[in-house]
């Protein structure tokens, strides 16, 4: 490798994503506790810490933690209400679950030496797949065959409608793909870039620039961690709206 030839630099930006068993061993069975397990469990603990322990006072005038919990609640609640409508509020706990998991996994993943479950396509594909299957089943249960009107654009001229139907159908099935790859890709890319710059910091004359770049990209990643959780959640709301009200 060219980088190694330059003397001492060894950059392994993807090593941080390797899934390892927590307690030694090589084989990874489906039940083996791994670093992914650890950081998912920490996300659960963080959720409990913020939304349960943080609100234990049930105060009329909230403490700081309770304010943050209420802010998160209000943020997602309003998003579901505004995008999916009043009848979408039944699904608020599910959407809140997705949001809390993604946002906390993202933020915990920004801790140096940590592992980010949401950087793995397996995780995001399951999340997006859950949304896709739920929304599709819900669309047919709620609207029956009328759900197919989602693909039949009535406002378009008749000859165009079959073509549009094909496009709509493709875009509908691409949804889970883009939904999952957007999240995993953003998180993975950011973390990999951080690692690359960190590798360059080993060379004395690049180190200052490298460290500056790490700082800047870290700040960007903090933003991305929240924005990707927000995007995933709001897209879920949009898909939910399509299932509840398939008429354009």
């Amino acid at each position: 490798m060219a980088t190694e030839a330059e003397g001492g630099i060894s950059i392994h930006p993807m090593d941080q994503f390797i899934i390892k068993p927590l307690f030694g061993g090589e084989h990874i069975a489906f039940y083996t506790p791994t670093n992914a397990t650890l950081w998912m469990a920490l996300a659960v603990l963080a959720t409990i810490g913020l939304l349960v322990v943080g609100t234990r006072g049930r105060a009329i005038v909230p403490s700081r933690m309770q304010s943050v919990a209420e802010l998160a609640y209000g943020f997602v609640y309003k998003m579901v209400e505004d995008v999916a409508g009043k009848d979408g509020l039944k699904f608020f706990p599910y959407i809140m679950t997705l949001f809390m998991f993604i946002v906390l996994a993202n933020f915990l993943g920004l801790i140096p030496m940590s592992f980010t479950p949401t950087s793995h396509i397996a995780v995001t594909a399951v999340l997006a797949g859950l949304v896709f299957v739920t929304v599709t089943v819900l669309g047919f249960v709620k609207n029956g065959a009328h759900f197919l009107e989602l693909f039949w654009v009535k406002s378009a001229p008749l000859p165009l409608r079959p073509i549009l139907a094909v496009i709509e159908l493709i875009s509908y099935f691409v949804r889970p793909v883009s939904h999952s790859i957007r999240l995993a890709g953003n998180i993975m890319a950011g973390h990999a870039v951080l690692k690359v710059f960190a590798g360059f910091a080993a060379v004395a004359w690049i180190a200052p620039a490298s460290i500056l770049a790490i700082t800047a990209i870290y700040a960007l990643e903090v933003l991305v961690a929240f924005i990707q959780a927000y995007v995933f959640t709001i897209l879920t709301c949009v898909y939910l709206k399509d299932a509840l009200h398939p008429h354009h």
Partner: protein
Amino acid sequence: MATESTEAAHGAAEAAGHAAAAGAPGMPQLDFSTFPNQIFWLALTLIAIYLVLSRVALPRIGAVLAERKGTITNDLAAAEELKLKAEEAEQAYQKALSDARAEAQRIVAETRAGIQKELDAATAKANAEIAARAAESEKRIAEIRASAMESVAAVARDTAGAIVGALGAQADASAIEAAVAARLKG
């Protein structure tokens, strides 16, 4: 973002090169042997978060928010009520004040009228008394004057008689009286 992605892609390619050299799979994300493990733990995680949220966290936060909303609404209503009460109290106070003022005016007027009446009565009485006293005094003065005139006439007569006697003539009493009377009239 675009540069970031290309950099990441570059990094990924580099890592893939490394990994290939080391004999391990390129992107850990595409190591399908770890998928069942991740999916299993993700399912547990999501179920755990969902249970915590739906059983404890969301009802609690919802209740707190609703309670706060209710408290604020109640407080606003109470404040409105208290404001009305304060306005009422002020009106009552103003009314009491104006009543008291009117009462005071009435009492002042009444007292003034009473005093005026008493004063008038006293003045009239005093006037009457003064008039009576003056009349009495005038009467007495007239009496004194009359008696004084009489005395003057008597003295004049006596003096005239004596003077006439001293001159050696016998004075006629009636002539002297007539002369004195004529003089006194003058």
